[in-house]
């Protein structure tokens, strides 16, 4: 099924080292649209990432820091980047060799399309 987010996700997945991208509902933790490589458990990943993003957003608010601009989680074998707007979270999963700067620029650009 085609969604308005297909093109945005396609641009992200074409970045070097990106192995998955998806749009997730922040409140439900359910995938709205995704472009994932084999091996990424989409529903599980979406539920946990949405929860992580929501908690980060609430923590930033509680600390008086305002909204979360860009969330990056560095793990042993890769990283997770997330950015959100209006209850939607755009998530990218990347290998360690990925250029986070470029991914961040693309995600900030894509943020406009999330509304």
């Amino acid at each position, binding site marked *: 099924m085609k969604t308005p987010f297909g093109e945005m996700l396609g641009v992200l997945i074409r970045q070097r080292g990106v192995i998955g991208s998806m749009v997730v509902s922040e409140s439900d933790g*359910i995938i709205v649209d995704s472009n994932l490589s084999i091996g990424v458990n989409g*529903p599980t990943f979406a539920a946990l990432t949405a*929860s992580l993003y929501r908690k980060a957003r609430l923590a930033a608010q509680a600390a008086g820091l305002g909204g979360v601009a860009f969330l990056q989680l560095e793990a042993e074998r890769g990283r997770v980047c997330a950015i959100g707007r209006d209850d939607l979270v755009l998530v990218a999963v990347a290998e360690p060799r990925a250029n986070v700067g470029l991914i961040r620029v693309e995600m900030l650009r894509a943020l406009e399309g999330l509304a």
Partner: protein
Amino acid sequence: MTFAVVENWVEPPLRRFVDDARVLIALVLHPSGQVLAQSGFTRAVDVMSACALAAAIHASAGELGKMLEGRAFGGLHHAGRERQIFLAPVLTPRSTFLVLAVFDRESSLGLVQLYFNELSSGIAAAAPLPVEQAPVLANDFERELNRNLAALFGRA
């Protein structure tokens, strides 16, 4: 968090589910409405009502699914303004059980579904094998129901 079980084997997987999924209320019941375990209720009458309603919803949704798709629906989710419910069956060698979970913004449907899958596996693995039972009669049903509620709320 109040927690009570009628059958001990339900407790470990249900406790894990409540902790992981951050649900406010969780019920494990038989499709007939008999409760096996509960978390989050403080009054027996609430458990009884919730079990009766959950069993009725499951039965109605199941028949609706059979009419539309030829088989019963799986999980059912209803989102309220503040709270949401998730109701789904768990298939075990012994019987089918129902799980009712109530959650708010501290959790999400995705998380509840994720940990429900673990709960299903846990219940299926822990459930004892079926034993020969006499048919359930109306009189027995009420007695069994009251016995379960008494066990849950410490009046056994």
